[in-house]
């Protein structure tokens, strides 16, 4: 009798071990917003909600596992993860599935996933590992090498083409360099280098990508083509007003004026139905998430852990910023989901694994402090 009562409690305690309640609460709140919005946006397709629930369950399990792995172990596997990520990207370039004209997906038996997702975590792991190894005396040469390590996957992802993810991965690389203490001058030089590489990059861009960027400057140029996304999502956001039209009452979403309303443009649905008030809540949740993440980074035990936590946190921020910026019409339309909210298994898993890593770092914060 006593045993029977004890066992679940023990199990709960074991499950809760290493789990940061604050982070989990924030992430789950965001996921709940996502599910509610998704429910509203997919009344034509109820299966989508079930699928996302399954995605969430899988992502939570992955987070739990990640939270159980101590940072030292992660560090040990960092180069392997990076190399595996590179290998997958090469594989996808050679044998990936083409969806919407881009080769991004890889079939592994029954599961289909985007290898670029792996790189979102593998790159900061790798760079944090590299800088940690040379922690005592980081020279400019090290930062240059770090930049090169970042450039390889970025180039591979950009070639798919998946400009949004490439930019994100590049941003994560820069974050690691930044936190690793790259001097202001080399940082400025790097920024200049990126700027200087823009014109030649423009030539490498696909027609639709150029159009998206040009359309950002004036969406009305092509109201039925490239500008359509931005115009309709802006209308959805603006028409939401302060209080929103109410859950399930967004006309823009329900009449299918918002394209990709389950995935990249889910914020338009949310903002239409919940208004500015909902937007403030969502932004507050992200601010809390970032604050918690940066706090964990600041208190992390090792250089590796600090770099990893800070860059993962800023990656989460970047996701949210780019997505909301794009939906509200101040950034070009790139395929970046709204973290924890958008529909989609790969991204959700990556995000929760990231959260898991943060939890693990938080859990092991005092260990080396002797």
């Amino acid at each position, binding site marked *: 009798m006593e045993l029977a009562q004890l066992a679940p409690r023990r199990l709960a305690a074991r499950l809760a071990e290493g789990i940061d309640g604050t982070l989990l609460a924030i992430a789950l709140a965001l996921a709940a917003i996502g599910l509610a919005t998704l429910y509203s946006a997919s009344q034509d397709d109820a299966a989508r909600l079930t699928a996302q629930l399954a995605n969430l369950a899988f992502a939570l399990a992955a987070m739990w596992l990640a939270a159980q792995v101590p940072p030292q172990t992660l560090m040990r596997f960092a180069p392997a993860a990076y190399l595996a990520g590179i290998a997958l990207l090469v594989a996808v370039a050679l044998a990936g599935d083409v969806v919407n004209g881009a080769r991004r997906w890889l079939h592994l038996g029954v599961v289909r996933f985007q290898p670029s997702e792996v790189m979102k975590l593998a790159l900061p792991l790798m760079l944090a590992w590299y800088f940690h190894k040379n922690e005592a005396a980081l020279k400019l040469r090290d930062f240059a090498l770090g930049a090169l390590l970042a450039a390889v996957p970025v180039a591979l992802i950009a070639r798919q083409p998946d400009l949004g993810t490439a930019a994100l991965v590049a941003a994560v690389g820069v974050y690691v360099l930044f936190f690793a203490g790259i001097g202001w001058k080399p940082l400025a030089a790097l920024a200049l280098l990126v700027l200087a590489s823009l014109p030649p990059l423009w030539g490498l861009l696909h027609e639709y990508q150029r159009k998206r960027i040009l359309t950002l400057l004036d969406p009305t140029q092509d109201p039925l083509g490239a500008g359509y996304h931005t115009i309709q999502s802006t209308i959805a956001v*603006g028409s939401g007003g302060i209080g929103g039209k109410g859950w399930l009452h967004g*006309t823009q979403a329900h009449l299918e*004026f918002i394209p990709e309303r389950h995935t990249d443009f889910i914020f338009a649905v949310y903002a239409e139905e919940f208004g500015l008030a909902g937007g403030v809540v969502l932004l507050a949740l992200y601010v809390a998430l970032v*604050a918690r993440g940066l706090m964990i980074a600041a208190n992390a035990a090792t250089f590796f852990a600090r770099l990893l936590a800070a860059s993962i946190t800023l990656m989460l921020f970047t996701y949210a910023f780019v997505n909301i910026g794009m939906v509200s019409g101040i950034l070009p339309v790139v395929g970046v989901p709204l973290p924890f909210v958008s529909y989609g298994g790969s991204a959700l898993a990556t995000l929760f694994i990231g959260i898991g890593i943060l939890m693990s770092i938080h859990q092991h914060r005092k260990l080396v402090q002797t």
Partner: protein
Amino acid sequence: MRIAELKDHQRELYYFQLRVGIAGIAVLLAFGLLLARLAYLQVVQHDTYAAKAEENRISIVPIAPNRGLILDRNGVVLARNYSAYTLEILPAKVRDLERTIQELAEIVEVQPKDRARFRKLLAETRNAESLPIRTRLSDEEVARFAANRYRFPGVEIKARLFRQYPHGGLASHVVGYIGRISARDQERLAEAGLDSNYRGTDFIGKAGLEASYQHELHGVTGFEQVEIDAAGRGIRTLARSPAKAGNNVTLSLDIRLQEVAEGAFGARRGALVALDPSSGGVLAFVSKPGFDPNLFVDGIDPQSWEGLNNSPDRPLNNRAIAGVYPPGSTFKPFMALAALELGKRRPSSTIQDPGYFEFGGRRFHDSKRGGHGTVDLYQSIVKSSDTYYYMLANDMGIDAIAGFMQRFGFGAKSGIDLEGEATGVLPSPEWKLKRFRRPEQQKWYAGETISIGVGQGYNAYTPMQLALAVATLAANGSMYRPHLVAHVDNLRSGERRHVEPVLVRRVALKDENLEFIRRAMAGVNREGTGARAFAGAQYSSGGKTGTAQVIGLKEGEKYDEKKIAERFKDHALFIAFAPLESPKIALAVVVENSGFGARFAAPIARIVLDYYLLGRLPESMPGRAAPEEEPDDEEREGD
């Protein structure tokens, strides 16, 4: 070493935490930017975007009302509606029109005619309108397109009501036709403040009663508020006010009489107007040649249009009200009446007719060589003496003639309920002053008065004016405004509005004078120039033949029918009323370029009167198209 390392460590941690702080501030700034953007969109610009979302969402779909029918006096349908499928293109939503049409042609038949019409419509009509590339699709074609619909954004099958004229070209100038609303129609509607009632309407009356009764026939447009999705598909109806069908218009015209009258013309060009003298109701209204109004219904193809528009026979010209002709000798009864009323002649007074009248050194010839001898007023009408009227006109003077004729409606629009009526010319010094610019042309010459007396010279009247003058004569001087429509019916309310006879004026005339003229006109049909055409008629009637010169003949030149090109041949005219006592019908006939009125116009009048009064065609009638033969003396004698 250890301490240095620790210090190093401390410093490194400090730098890291500094950078975390910087990152934190950057994050806050970035989210602040997003918040500002959201506030701008959702608070400052909220009204704009809310309106845009509504615009996106709600579409006002007009429901075009069913057009009213046009019926003859017996309820025979002259214009009706039927439903058919059309294949329509919304040009604004199609990127490459040519390619789309090309691809459509693989699924449904698209003839060059259809393409030409589509291009014409595209050039003519209001923008943002869906235009038919094909009309009257078969069920099979509808099914074939439906299966391929996804390939053609901006192309749709629509069920449309079409106008149909079951009698084809019969009474085409009465009924008229409808056509697509043009930019000019649109402007006119906007000026009249009617454009909102025409939002769902594609067609408008362009000619005939379809045009003049457009607003009765059209009805009231209904509206439906429909919630639509991004693809423009209607999701659900939010509100609806149904359309109210147009009114039915019933004519005083009898389509069977019309058919008989048109048949009597055969292939000849001309016009006939038959009126009910006691009300002004139009009984028959012919303008030949006509046209098939059905050609116009779904947009006339350019080829047919060219054919109608450029034909030398001018089939689109409504001769009955827009064609002007010299009345010729049909003018004489009115001249005789004027002489009696003004005391210029007495019935008993006679003249000697040598075959010409000399004035100012110029001879005005009688159509009968050698003249009619001693002629009194009665004979002048029955035998149609020109000399008598040359002299009479000279005696009366132009002012007296114009003043009298004006009262019979000559040279003025009759006011019939059709558009496009011509005024004609009632010659007078005032008219000349207005008509011409140069002083020597503006002056009226006494010699010009003389040919006015026989219905030539500047005289130019529409067949409608002639018929109205005869009807006024038949109604003892009461002139009723001619009208085609007898009543207008509102089908919903059951309300019927009759077109009441409108007395334009009562021409004051002495009974004995009227009686004399009617007796003389009866004499025309009994023993005069109309006798042949009215031989054996089972009713009494009055008439007058007329032959109007198309070109002026030189002095001493004799008219030779055979030598003159067809277009320059004389117009044949006839006016008539019947029965003599209390006339039920008065008419005027003009047969263009045919020759003598007695031979070509009077028989048509006989056919119409027989059918109207007896309900049958004449038993012993010369054929509709009389064989070309040398006119005998009797015909030659009269005009």
